[in-house]
């Protein structure tokens, strides 16, 4: 569930309609060409959606969408 919601948020923020290729291994910056501010906006939207706080130093360690999902599942 968390994965699907995270992917939906990413799609909305980046304006990507076809999300079928997005997997846990997908990188926001390398694969989806998000810039650093897109990444911050996505993190903010995820924080709001799941009522979690994702500190900057945690967010910096996320390598792919799977890392975000794991963090949210652990902390929500």
């Amino acid at each position, binding site marked *: 569930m968390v994965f699907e919601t995270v992917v939906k948020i990413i799609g909305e923020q980046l304006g990507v309609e076809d999300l079928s290729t997005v997997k846990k291994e997908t990188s926001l910056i390398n694969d989806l060409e998000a*810039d*650093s*501010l897109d990444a*911050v906006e996505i993190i*903010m939207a995820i924080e709001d959606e799941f009522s979690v706080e994702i500190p900057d130093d945690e*967010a910096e360690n996320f390598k792919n969408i799977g890392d975000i999902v794991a963090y949210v599942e652990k902390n929500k």
Partner: protein
Amino acid sequence: MNKLFSAGITGTGSFLPEKVLTNHDLEKIVDTSDEWITTRTGIKSRRIADDQIASSDLATKAAEAAMEDAGIHPEEVDLIIVATATPDMAFPSTACIVQKNIGAVNAAAFDIEAACTGFLYALTMGEQFIKTGFYKNILIIGAETLSKVLNWKDRNTCILFGDGAGAVILQRTEEEGMLASYLGSDGRNSDSLTLPAGGSRMPISYKTIDEGLHCIRMEGSEVFKFAVRTMGSSALKALEKCNIALEEIDFLVPHQANSRIIEAAAKRLKLPMDKVYINLDKYGNMSAASVPVALDEAVKSNAIKKGDKVVLVAFGGGLTWGSSIIKWIK
């Protein structure tokens, strides 16, 4: 507060230094590109004051324009408040230097510092002085020469800021022009946006100069998150105080820090971008001068018309934030 009188903005003015520094000019100074700056900030150019020009010089020109616009003489001004993070010197205040320059011999004068939120703090203070009947004519200025405190080797900050000044005349009026104001601060996050050296914590030394501690430092993504959230929430707080719905708002004049912040905040407020005034493409972030310069331009270009309800909103170092709901009564 017991309100005895009404207050309203009756004149605006602004002044920008002539020298333009474009993104292409910056490409020659630091490792950056027009494309990078434009996509991440919306800024294309900024104005830079000459070496011998100080914040008070820009403030004086903006003040003279605002007084002329309001049709008042310098001797009628009761109070001058200058909001600035880049005063001419530690003391006397920039406001006293402006007082001398414009000949406002009957005024009291002081500076306030709330970084980029400074103008909203000054405007709200002025509003209280008018509404209690203490003063009738107040000159409120936001003036900055941020180019003097930038680290031109730090590509994350030096691309963002510019110099300029904006001023308003706030007067006792028949019709209410200041509908509501809201201010906030959170000192717990004071480290995310600082100019650390040159005060009593870190007096000037060879070491502070070598380490570039007299320059603006910023934790970009922390400030971005804070800015997007507080722009929306503080605008809503002020609207709530005067019982006005967001749909009734004709125009938003936000602090001009970054177009991505403004767009994200407008999205949260569900406000279309054609109701939002943007001039940061030309001037960058002018800290306390951003809102009054944008307000002056919006009024002079007829984007704001008589009877319009306008939200002014800003955020900045401190951390600080504030918003005012004004009705344009002129």
